[in-house]
């Protein structure tokens, strides 16, 4: 079970099989879904896909970090990070599918 890595190609192949558009157009649609989601996140919006999950942008304050190798203190600038919270459905299916 499961050590394959899927890419955009596999997603466009699935779209191609499901809807019967050309492979080229299927690939473009996959790309535009990702672009719209990214653009919304960059604008600071939450992206909530029901029964999939929610992407949220969180702001982190500046803090003092430490280089773990040298012990040296380094300033970490304030930044925005993305967090993903999977839906219940996704959690259930992932748990059930990977159960031994």
């Amino acid at each position, binding site marked *: 079970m499961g*050590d394959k890595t*899927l890419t955009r190609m596999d997603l466009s192949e699935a779209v191609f099989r499901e809807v019967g558009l050309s492979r080229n157009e299927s690939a473009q649609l996959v790309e535009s879904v*990702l672009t719209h989601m990214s653009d919304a996140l960059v604008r600071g919006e*939450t992206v909530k896909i029901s029964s999939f999950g929610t992407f949220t942008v969180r702001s982190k304050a500046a803090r003092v970090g430490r280089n773990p190798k040298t012990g040296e203190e380094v300033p970490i600038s304030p930044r925005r990070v993305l967090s993903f919270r999977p839906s219940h459905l996704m959690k259930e299916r992932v748990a059930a599918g990977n159960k031994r």
Partner: protein
Amino acid sequence: MIRSELIQKISEENPHLYQRDVERIVNTIFEEIISAMARGDRVELRGFGAFSVKKRDPRLGRNPRTGEAVQVDEKHVPFFKTGKLLRDRLNEE
């Protein structure tokens, strides 16, 4: 942004497609990602991020109300790591 708004935007950009087909396309993409993870596979979308499955070891948990020890089985949980390009875009001026 919610799923229906995403479908709306894609529909507007593709006036030659029926909205119900755009719905099927968008749903297929998300469904494919979940199915892959349910098989234990990873989905790597360069520039956006990667979906993978992490294993949580079995452990001895505790019922917070009674303090009683309970066995918690091994389980698998979805995980998302943001891609470099998106991470950088979130922080550019």
